[in-house]
C-alpha cells in the first residue's frame, strides 16, 4: 500500500476495508467532528482521503480478505482515482488508433482497452478481477469433448453451443449489443441448451450451467438479454452470490435485472460512417446523390439521439462530432443541422469545449462567413468576388484595403476558406510576383483536423478536471485467454521477457523497465498495461510503436528547433517505410499516424527512432501536455510548392488537390514526403510551422 493511501486511512481513522458503507460512515463522523469553514484545508484533506479510499475499495472484490486485495506497491497508485464510468468516444474510430493500445494512465489497473463503443457502466472496474481468475481452457472444445453433438442440435442446424458462442463472442461486432434478430436466435439457443441439459442428467446440467455462465459472463454486456432465462433455469435469481459459486456465476448474479447500455449497431450510423469516411480515405466532396442520402441518414441518427436517454444521446453526439471532424470538408453539408440539433454553438469558447466541437464550430463560422460575404451588401463582398474570380490580373476599382482585410481575416479565422481564392490573384494582391509568373506566386494553406490527438485526449477523460482515463474495460471478452499466454496473468515487469522485448524495440537494447519507470512513470505504466492486456507479441510491439508515435507527435508543439528537425526526419522515415509497403499503408501513416502491424522500419531508421526516444525520455519530453486544440494549419510558400512539383513530377493541379484533402493514395504519399523534404531544406520562417504541423 502506498504512503498516500495509508495516510488516507489514518485521516479517516479506520483500518483498511473494502466496505464502502464503513468508509462513508467514518467520513461522516470525521466531518461532523469538524467545522468545515474554520478548517478548509482539513476538509479538503478529508474529502480527498475519502475519495481515494473509496476509489480503492471499488476495485476490490467485496468478500476477499484484505491481505489479498491490497494493490501492489507503486507510487502511481496514490493518484488512483476512480475511472469515470461515463461512456464516451467515437465508436468506429477507436479501431483506427491501433486496437487495444493504452495511451497513458496513472495506474494500469484502471487502464483498459479503448472500448470500441460506449459500453455498459455495469461492466465496471471489478470485472477485470474476474477476468484474472478465468479458466484458461478453450471454451468450445471443453464443452464439446464429452457431449454428443447429435443430442445438442438437430443435424441440419448448427449446434446451439457453437452458435451461441459465435453470436456472443466471435468475430467483429461483438462489442455491440445484439440486434433483434440476433437476440431471438440467441434466446432460442439458450432455450435449446437448457432443454437438452434438462433431459440429460445431473452431469450435463452442471456442465451446461457452468458453460453458459462462462459464456454469458464473457459476452457481457452483449449477453444481458439472455441472463434472465438462464438465471431462472439455474436458480441464480433466487439467491445472493456465495463463495461456492464459480467466478462466472458470481459475476452474473449481481447483474441480474440490470440493463447495461450496450450499443446496437444501427444501420443508419453505419451507413453514414461509410458514406462520410469511405475506405479509400479520400475526401472528395459528396455528390448530390450522396449528400441527399447522407441527409436522410443523418435525420434518422438525429431522431434516434433525440429519443434516447442522456448517455446514449451524448455518445451519439460525440460520435457525430468526431466523424464530421474527421470527414471534413466532405461532411460540410451536414454540419449545420447537427450543430443545431446539439446546440454546439453554445459551447463555443467555453473552457470545456470538446476539441472536435471546437474544430467544427470554427468551420461553421467559416461557412457562415462564406454565405454572408456572397451578399452584395457585405463590406468585403467586392474583395471576395475579386479574389474568387478567374484570371491573373488585379481588378480595377477594388479597394486595396478591403482585399488586404479579407486575406488577413480569412487566414486568421478561417484558413480553410483560402481554397476558394484564386492563388494567382492572391499573390498579385500581396505583391508577390506582380501577378506575372504564376509559379512562385501561390501558396497553399493546409488545415488539418487533429484526429489522432483526439484519440489520445479522450483518454484523459472528457473532462479536464479528471486526470485519470475515463475508460473501463468490458468483461475482458476481447482478449480470449489461450493456454500459455495468459494476458491477464500477473508478471514481474522487471524480469518479464515480453515486456523487455517491447522496451528494447522502443528504446534500444540497453533500456530496462526500472529506467523507463524512473524517467516517466506514466509511460511505463501505459506500456505495462498494454503488456497485461495484449497477449500477442506482435500486437504488443505494434502498441509500443503507436504509443511512441503519439508521444512524439504530441511533443512537436513544444519541441526546440533541433528536436523538431529530428522528429521530422523520423516521420519521413516512417512514411518511407510505409511507402515501401504500399500506398495505402503510406496513407494510413499520413492520416492516422499508424504504421500497421507487421510493417517494419528499416534497421537504420529503427536505430534513429530508438535514439530519439531515449533522448526525449531522458529530457522528459515524452510526457507532453495534451494538445490544446483540434485543428492546425500551416502555409506552404510558393517556391516550396515548386520544389514539390519538381520532386514529384506531378502537375500543379494534382499537388494542390492533395493540399485540399483529395488525391489518390500514392499521390498524397509522394506529395507529403516531398513536403517534409522540402521543409527540412527550407530556410524561410515558414519552416517551423510546417515542421510542427504537417
Amino acid at each position: 500500500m502506498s504512503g498516500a493511501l495509508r495516510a488516507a486511512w489514518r485521516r479517516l481513522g479506520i483500518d483498511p476495508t473494502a466496505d464502502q458503507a464503513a468508509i462513508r460512515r467514518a467520513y461522516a463522523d470525521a466531518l461532523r467532528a469538524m467545522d468545515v469553514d474554520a478548517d478548509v484545508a482539513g476538509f479538503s484533506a478529508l474529502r480527498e482521503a475519502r475519495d481515494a479510499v473509496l476509489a480503492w475499495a471499488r476495485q476490490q472484490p467485496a468478500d476477499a480478505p484484505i491481505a489479498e486485495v491490497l494493490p501492489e506497491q507503486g507510487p502511481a497508485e496514490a493518484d488512483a482515482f476512480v475511472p469515470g464510468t461515463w461512456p464516451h468516444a467515437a465508436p468506429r474510430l477507436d479501431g483506427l488508433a491501433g486496437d487495444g493500445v493504452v495511451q497513458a494512465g496513472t495506474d494500469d489497473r484502471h487502464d483498459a482497452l479503448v472500448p470500441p463503443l460506449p459500453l455498459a457502466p455495469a461492466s465496471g472496474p471489478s470485472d477485470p478481477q474476474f477476468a484474472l481468475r478465468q479458466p484458461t481452457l478453450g471454451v468450445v472444445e471443453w464443452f464439446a469433448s464429452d457431449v454428443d453433438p447429435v443430442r445438442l442440435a438437430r443435424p441440419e442446424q448448427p449446434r446451439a453451443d457453437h452458435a451461441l458462442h459465435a453470436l456472443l463472442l466471435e468475430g467483429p461486432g461483438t462489442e455491440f449489443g445484439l440486434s433483434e434478430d440476433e437476440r431471438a436466435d440467441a434466446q432460442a439457443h439458450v432455450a435449446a441448451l437448457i432443454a437438452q441439459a434438462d433431459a440429460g442428467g445431473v452431469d450435463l446440467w452442471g456442465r451446461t450451467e457452468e458453460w453458459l455462465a462462462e459464456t454469458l459472463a464473457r459476452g457481457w454486456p452483449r449477453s444481458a438479454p439472455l441472463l434472465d432465462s438462464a438465471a431462472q433455469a439455474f436458480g441464480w435469481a433466487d439467491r445472493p452470490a456465495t463463495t461456492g459459486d464459480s467466478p462466472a456465476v458470481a459475476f452474473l448474479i449481481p447483474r441480474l435485472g440490470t440493463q447495461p447500455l450496450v450499443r446496437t449497431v444501427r444501420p443508419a450510423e453505419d451507413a453514414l460512417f461509410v458514406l462520410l469516411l469511405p475506405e479509400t480515405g479520400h475526401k472528395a466532396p459528396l455528390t448530390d446523390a450522396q449528400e441527399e442520402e447522407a441527409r436522410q441518414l443523418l435525420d434518422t441518427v438525429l431522431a434516434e439521439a433525440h429519443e434516447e436517454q442522456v448517455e446514449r444521446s451524448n455518445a451519439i453526439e460525440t460520435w457525430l462530432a468526431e466523424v464530421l471532424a474527421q470527414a471534413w470538408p466532405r461532411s460540410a453539408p451536414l454540419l449545420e443541422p447537427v450543430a443545431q440539433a446539439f446546440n454546439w454553438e453554445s459551447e463555443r469558447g467555453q473552457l470545456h469545449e470538446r476539441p472536435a466541437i471546437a474544430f467544427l464550430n470554427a468551420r461553421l463560422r467559416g461557412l457562415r462567413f462564406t454565405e454572408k460575404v456572397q451578399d452584395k451588401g457585405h463590406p468585403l463582398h467586392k474583395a471576395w468576388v475579386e479574389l474568387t474570380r478567374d484570371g491573373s490580373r488585379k481588378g480595377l476599382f477594388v479597394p486595396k484595403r478591403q482585399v488586404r482585410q479579407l486575406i488577413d481575416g480569412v487566414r486568421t479565422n478561417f484558413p480553410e476558406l483560402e481554397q476558394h481564392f484564386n492563388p494567382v490573384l492572391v499573390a498579385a494582391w500581396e505583391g508577390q510576383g506582380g501577378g506575372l509568373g504564376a509559379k512562385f506566386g501561390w501558396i497553399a494553406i493546409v488545415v488539418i483536423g487533429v484526429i489522432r490527438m483526439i484519440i489520445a485526449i479522450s483518454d484523459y477523460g472528457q473532462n479536464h478536471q479528471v486526470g485519470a482515463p475515463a475508460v473501463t474495460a468490458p468483461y475482458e471478452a476481447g482478449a480470449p485467454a489461450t493456454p500459455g499466454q495468459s494476458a491477464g496473468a500477473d508478471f514481474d515487469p522487471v524480469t518479464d521477457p515480453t515486456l523487455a522485448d517491447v522496451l528494447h524495440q522502443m528504446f534500444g537494447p540497453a533500456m530496462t523497465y526500472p529506467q523507463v519507470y524512473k524517467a516517466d512513470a506514466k509511460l511505463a505504466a501505459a506500456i505495462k498495461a498494454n503488456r497485461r492486456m495484449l497477449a500477442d507479441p506482435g500486437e504488443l510491439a505494434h502498441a509500443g510503436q503507436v504509443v511512441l508515435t503519439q508521444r512524439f507527435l504530441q511533443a512537436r508543439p513544444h519541441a526546440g528547433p533541433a528536436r523538431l528537425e529530428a522528429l521530422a526526419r523520423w516521420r519521413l522515415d516512417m512514411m518511407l517505410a510505409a511507402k515501401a509497403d504500399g500506398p495505402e499503408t503510406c496513407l494510413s501513416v499520413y492520416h492516422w499516424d499508424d504504421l500497421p502491424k507487421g510493417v517494419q522500419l528499416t534497421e537504420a531508421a529503427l536505430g534513429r527512432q530508438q535514439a530519439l526516444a531515449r533522448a526525449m525520455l531522458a529530457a522528459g519530453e515524452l510526457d507532453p501536455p495534451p494538445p490544446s486544440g483540434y485543428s492546425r494549419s500551416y502555409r506552404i510558400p510558393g517556391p516550396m510548392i515548386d520544389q514539390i512539383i519538381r520532386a514529384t513530377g506531378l502537375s500543379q493541379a494534382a499537388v494542390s488537390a492533395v493540399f485540399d484533402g483529395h488525391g489518390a493514395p500514392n499521390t498524397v504519399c509522394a506529395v507529403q514526403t516531398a513536403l517534409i523534404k522540402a521543409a527540412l531544406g527550407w530556410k524561410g520562417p515558414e519552416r517551423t510551422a510546417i515542421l510542427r504541423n504537417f
Partner: protein
Amino acid sequence: MIIGIDLGTTNSAVALWDGDAAQLVPNALGQMLTPSAVSVLPDGTTLVGQAALERMAAKDGATQVSFKRFMGTDRKLKLARQTFTAEELSALVLASLRDDVAAQTGAVPTEAVITVPAYFNDKQRKATRRAGELAGLSVRRLINEPTAAALAFGLASRGEHEPFLVFDLGGGTFDVSIVEMFAGIVEVRASAGDNRLGGDDFNEALAQAVRTRLDPEGLLDKAHPERARALLLQAAERTRRALSDKGEAEFALTVDGVRLATAVTAAELEAAAEPLLRRLRDPVVRALRDSQIDTASLSEVVLVGGATRMPVVRKAITRLFGRFPNSTVHPDHAVALGAAIQGGLIARDGGLEEVRITDVCPFTLGVDRSERDARGNVMSGLFTPIIERNTPVPVSRVHYFQTMADNQRRVEFGIFQGEAREVSGNVKLGALEIPVPPRPAGEVQVDVRFSYDSSGLLEVDVTIPATGESRNVVLADEEDRKDEAELDRRRRALAALKVHPREEAANQALLARAERLWEDHLGDVREAIGHWILAFQGALETQDHRVIAQASADLAMRLDSLDAEMPL
C-alpha cells in the same frame, strides 16, 4: 426563529421549522404560495401576491412579475410613476412573507434562510441577500434551491440514498443537482443549470406560436406592447395549465372588448417547446459528467419546480433518463421546506443536529491573465480558472503568476466567474491591483488565493512573496460596505411605500380578480361584474366586518362560478 424562504420567479413560499418538522406558513388568503408579483394601485398603494398578479394585464401597466430574472442587474422596472430594481421588488415579496409568519406566530421574524437557484452567479446571490436585508431580514444563509429540495426529499423519506438527481425547473430558472445522502450527510456532488430557462419561457413560446393565428387582424398590435405581452402570457399560462390535464385547450384573451380565442393541442405546445426541451439536456449532461455518475446508477430523479408538472417536460425527462421520475415531493413546496430545515440546522434545533450538508461551487471562478503567443504578441483577457466548477465548498486554492514585462510596476487582476475561455464571456466580480518590485520579466511571482466558503462568499488574497505585500478582497463585503448608506436609504424608501394592511389582502385580491374578469368578459356578463364590483366596494366602505365578510363571500362565489364557466 429562522424562517426558510423560497423566493421564486413565479411563486414564493415561506416555511418554519417547528422543532419536529418543517411547516409551510399560509398567506393572508390561506394559500401556501404567494405569487411573486408587485402592483401599484392608482392611489399609490402597493399590492403584493395574488392581488398584484390579478392586475397583471390591467391597463395601467403598474404590475411587475418574474422580476427575479433581473436579480443582480441594474435594470429599472417601472411601476406606475416609480422605478424599482429587482431586489427592491423582491424585498416587498419577502416582507409580505415575513408578515405572514408574524401573523401566524405572533412574533416578527428577523432571520431567514433564502434559497437561490444553484446556478445563480455571485452578483445574483448578493442581490438576493440585499433583498432580504431590505425586508429587514438578516440572511443567515443562502442555499441552493435543489439542495433545499434534496434536504426536504431526503429528510421526508429518511435513511440512506444512493446518488439521486434533483431536476428543478421553476418559473425562470433551471437547475440540476446530483445529491447523495449517507450517515447524516447530505452531499451535493455536482450542480449545473441554465439561469435563463423556466416555465415563463414555455409561456412565451406558446404565445409566439399562436399569436398570428389568434389575432390575424393584429388587434394586439394596437394595444400597448407591454400590455399585449402581459395578456398573451397570462393566457398562455392558463392554456399551459389546462393542457396538463387534457389534450386540447382554448387559448383565449380579451383585448379592448374583443375576445380572441383559438384551440391549442398538446402536440402544438410540444412543438413550440421543442427548442426549450432541448436545452434541458445540457445541464443534465454536465452534472452527470462532472460527478462521474451515469443515469443507471442514479436511484431517483426528483422533480421540483412548478414547470415539471407539464406533461411535455415529464415526457422529456423520462426520455432523458430512461425511467419515470419520482414525484413524491411537492414540486412547489419542497424548496421552502428545505430552507426551513436548513434554518433549523443553523439554529441547532434538537431534532436535527445530526445532519450536515456539503455543497459545491457550481461555476468556475478565476482571474484574467495575459500571455504571449508564438509570434510574441500579447494576448490578454484569457481566463485562468482557480476554483473549477463543482468543487466541494468550502475550498481554498492558490495559483501562481509571473510578471510579463521588465520593470513592471504593478499587477492587475480582474476576478471572474464563468466557463468561457476568454473573460469577455464571463461575469466580472471585481478587480484588484498590487504593486510589484521592478525586476526582469518573469522574476516576480504573484500568488493568488481564492477562498470560497459554504455560504458562497468569495475571498481573494494576492501576495507578492518577494516583498511580502498582500491585498485582500472579500467581494461581498466590499460591495455591501460601499452602499451601506445607500442600502439604508432604500430600506427607508421601501418602508415608506403604502402597503395594504395584511388583513385586507384577501379583499384586494378579490377585487383585482373581479376587475380582471371584467376585462375578460363582454356584454351582459361584463355589466353584471361591474355591478358586483360596485356593490363590493360599497361594502368595503362601510368598514363593517360582518358586511364585508358577507359581501366578499358572495363575490367570491359569483366569480368562482364565472371562472368555471369560462370556456378555457
